[in-house]
């Protein structure tokens, strides 16, 4: 009885992806402010990455969001 996840994994494996380290994340919430198209906050203030593939036009903003994270929990990775 798999629960449908809130995230969309359809873009996995191509292009640039946002990854979150849930242990480092302390719910500062800056990422969701800088990249609202891709990151929303759950009711407890923790980020939900709604699409793991970042569209090309948002990569600059995604980079800014990752750099702004005080815990360095958010990372932008190019997939192989």
């Amino acid at each position, binding site marked *: 009885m798999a629960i449908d996840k809130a*995230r969309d994994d359809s873009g996995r494996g191509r292009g640039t992806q946002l990854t979150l380290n849930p242990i480092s994340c302390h719910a500062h919430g800056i990422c969701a402010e800088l990249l609202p198209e891709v990151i929303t906050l*759950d009711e407890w203030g*923790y980020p939900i990455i709604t699409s793991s593939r970042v569209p090309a036009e948002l990569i600059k903003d995604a980079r800014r969001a990752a750099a702004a994270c005080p815990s360095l929990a958010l990372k932008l990775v190019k997939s192989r």
Partner: protein
Amino acid sequence: MTTSFTSAPYLGPNPPNGPHRLLAGWVQHRRGSDWTEHTARYGPLPLPRRLRRGGNQQLIQLVERSGLRGRGGAGFPTARKLAEVAAGRKPSLVIANGCEGDPASNKDRVLLRIAPHLVLDGIEAAAHAVGAPQAVLCLHQNDPLAQHLRAAIQQRPHTPLLPEVVEVPPHYVASADSSLVNLLTHGTARPGPRRPRPSERGVRGRPTLVDNVETLAHLALIARYGDAWFRGRGTHDAPGTTLVTINGAVQSPGVYEIDLGTPLSEMLRLAGGTAQPLRAVLLGGLAGHWLALPDMRALPLTDQACRQVGASLGIAALIALPIGACGLAASARILHYLASESAGQCGPCMFGLPAIADDLSAIATGQANHSHAQRLWRRLQVISGRGACAHPDGAVNLAASALRVFADDLDAHLAGQPCPGAAYPFPLPIPPDRPSLRPDRSLLTKEMSHGNRQSA
């Protein structure tokens, strides 16, 4: 024709042919076996004299042909894990996991108590298979088993592969494989991310084999009697026997050894049957899946069959719920326990699990309505997959299966009419409240364990 990994017929006693392989000594003598009885029953472990750094490919291939899968809950193919560790370049390490953090499961404790030498043989065989110069056996702190295993180790002929017994804080998540790796590396038994796997990079970056003690016991027998013998019981996709803990409304709760593929009804019969009709069974430990009865009575105990009905085998433990009991109330209690056992590292788990536990409690006591139920469903979707380890997912799966299997009860509860059973909590194997892991995370540190030196 059985091919042992030494390519010679086994010269010890005949293999156990009945349904009891791990529990053969217990069934005969009604007590545990010491070293003398163990070697008389099973014969010597046919290992080469010297450990080779690259491991033993013959043994790994034998395990692969046998189809052995892990008995710790994940069901990972054992040979694949052995091969990964053997392929590593740094000196590897074997960790035997005897912690059994899920309170619904008792089989590892029983195995360690009555057949410690099977487990110790398995550790030795696994170390040979991967070429590990060092082994560790993890048990819960303050458990009399630690003393028992140390004494069993003393009975054995000395080899460098005798494991060190390491005691682990008795928390639910502390017995995950990444937790044990973290304990031995950093001193704190907190779970970590799934990648890299311990078999690639584990304790201090070394390839680490983490196997459940029952898996290792089966390995000890496969090394002796071969793959064809192992496959003589169970099914093609789920070969061998497994230990299962049967709890709840059965006449003779306890640990039983069964062939994989045994139907649920047969397991209940083995456990003495039931005094009253059953409503459902919780399979896979506390963070498992509910299975409705009588619908699921013919379900064979294999992971494949369980997945076909939306469940998974997990750790082989059953809790039988009678008709008079309230499955929603029982699930709420379990969720509160799972919430209290969060390591407190990840927000969705740390905050989400108490929230859904409260939701289910409100539903169980008839204080919730349909919009609360919808919010609970949304929360389940939001929490799933967003923790570093599998703990929140297990809790979410339990809650989801409760809402589905007890859907009729749910409607009544949401209409403000909880079933009578909700007022009478069904006894569950949940330990009494003890200090939570949060906010004082020092409860997870190794400093609390007694008399253990730092491992390498």
